[in-house]
């Protein structure tokens, strides 16, 4: 806190104008549209609001959306880190192509991703026809949702971790090794603390992206109420029926939960980096 106060007397000029612009810009792009959502829900009474956002189908969809998003983001954290590691630390032919492939989920229209994934994982698809005899159904089950969310979230982790890994000097690892650390110790004591904040950011981004994802999921989910119906679909369904205020009510609940989760992750990150600063 004291640190923050001290920073107000910055040697850099133009603090007032730049903070002013930042707030104006954020208001225009983020806060005004979001507050419109909050205002729209005031058309409902508190009892109506509560009734809408706690209906059994809606509750089941929160569980599904946040659960699958969390699993998808966790998978991305592990394998995205691995991918970033490979891309930074090794040289091999075709590396540039693989590097470019990572961004593909960003560029691809999500509907295309959804249709492609469904085609591959459906019972008659390349992977699906191989998995289904083993009793593993991916398309049209919650598992399919996880696959789609993992797909769209991949670039976030890779792209946040990659630059940090790049900046990490190999000498520190060599020093650790020469001081007698084994490979696991080098990773857990030297590398991991350095990339941990970036990894957490990537995880948070992938998670947030997955919560709001609609386009790719509806094709692969099956969309059966109580089983594979995601919250964004419920919102779309309400809009289709011209029930604008109850649609926004559910949207507001999602917004609040997402904000709290992202706030918690940011807090965790802040706490982690402070701890690592203190230990220096």
């Amino acid at each position, binding site marked *: 806190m004291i640190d923050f106060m001290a920073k107000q007397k910055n040697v850099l000029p133009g603090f007032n104008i730049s903070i002013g612009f930042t707030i104006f810009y954020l208001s225009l792009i983020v806060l005004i549209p979001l507050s419109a959502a909050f205002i729209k829900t005031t058309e409902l009474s508190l009892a109506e609001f509560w009734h809408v956002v706690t209906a059994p189908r809606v509750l089941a969809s929160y569980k599904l959306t946040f659960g699958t998003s969390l699993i998808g983001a966790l998978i991305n954290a592990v394998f995205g880190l691995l991918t970033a590691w490979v891309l930074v630390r090794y040289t091999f032919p075709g590396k540039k192509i693989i590097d470019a492939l990572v961004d593909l989920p960003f560029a691809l229209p999500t509907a295309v991703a959804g249709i492609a994934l469904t*085609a591959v994982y459906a019972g008659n698809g390349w992977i699906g026809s191989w998995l289904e005899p083993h009793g593993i159904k991916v*398309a*049209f089950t919650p598992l399919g949702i996880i696959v789609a969310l993992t797909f769209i979230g991949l670039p976030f982790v890779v792209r946040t971790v990659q630059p940090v890994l790049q900046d990490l000097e190999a000498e520190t690892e060599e020093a650790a090794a020469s001081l007698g650390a084994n490979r696991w110790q080098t990773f857990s004591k030297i590398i991991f603390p350095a990339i941990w904040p970036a990894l957490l950011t990537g995880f948070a981004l992938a998670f947030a992206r997955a919560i709001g994802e609609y386009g790719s999921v509806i094709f692969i989910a099956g969309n*059966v109420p109580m089983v594979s119906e995601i919250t964004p679909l419920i919102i779309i369904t309400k809009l289709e029926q*011209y029930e604008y205020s109850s649609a926004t009510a559910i949207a507001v609940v999602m917004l609040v939960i997402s904000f709290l989760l992202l706030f918690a992750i940011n807090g965790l990150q802040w706490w982690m980096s402070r701890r690592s600063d203190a230990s220096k």
Partner: protein
Amino acid sequence: MFKKKWLVSLFITATTFITSNAVADSSLLNVSYDVTREFYKDFNPAFIKYWKQKTGETITVNQSHGGSSKQARSVVDGLEADIISMNQAPDIDILYERAKLIPKDWQKRLPNASSPTSSTIVFLVRQGNPKNIKDWDDLVKPGTAVVIPNPKTSGNGKYSYLAAWGYVLKKGGNEAQAKKFVSKLFKNVPVLDTGGRGATTTFAQRDIGDVLLTFENEVNLINKELGDKFDVVYPSSSILAENPIAVVDKYVDKHHTRALAQAYADFHYSEAGQEIAAKHYLRPSLATVAAKHKTEFKQIDLFSVDDVFGGWTKAQKTHFADGGTFDAIYTK
């Protein structure tokens, strides 16, 4: 200085060119749903030709296609459509309810409740009909997988749901039996797509399900596209799916296109318009054209939403609104 003047004159020429071009001939915007794309590709050139012959005026007809309620919402929110054509009356009612763009009794302004064509819900089964599906009762048997799009988000789904419900009532069943029947039917639905085309893909491309429920015109289109992989089965009774059309009063008055829009709407009912509809497997309403295509449209017992469900408003409220009978299938 010279450069600046040159730029200004270029700008003026450009703008006059653009604006004069827009004023020169009148145009119509027809906002419609997804599957009419092919129909209007044939219908619009025919109307343009007819109008040219009649008045000497060259016009353009612009089309906008998309999910039906999304399209209706765009018009309510300010997409200035001269004509709206949908596959269920509620998607046009909304223009009156939300924005007063048309009068409440818009359905009385054109023949047949403003519906130049109709369709019905039929079954599409895999070639040779391996599960021997003949009628609605076969759909609720255990082990039969039925693909129906979500009734909350698609016209196909709504009509399929009401067709099954109406089938039980028509057979002499009561509301409770109908509810039980429809519950059993939807327990057999493995995938609830959000729209009709999505359901078609699930059934035809992903090999999911034994039977697909969709519109007769859509079924014939699938058969034409995908050849002999599927068979069409007509149930003993089904629902009459009307395709209503309306001139959007507020916008035609603003655009001064009322006469043109009215002629466009009327052309749907003309012999030429009805022939084009029949070609696209939409049931014509004009007796002469209907008689000509009698063999293509199998005569089955068709009941309307008004007859069996007391109108769309009531059907919507009882069955598809939140907490309605459709929700009850999944939450109880």
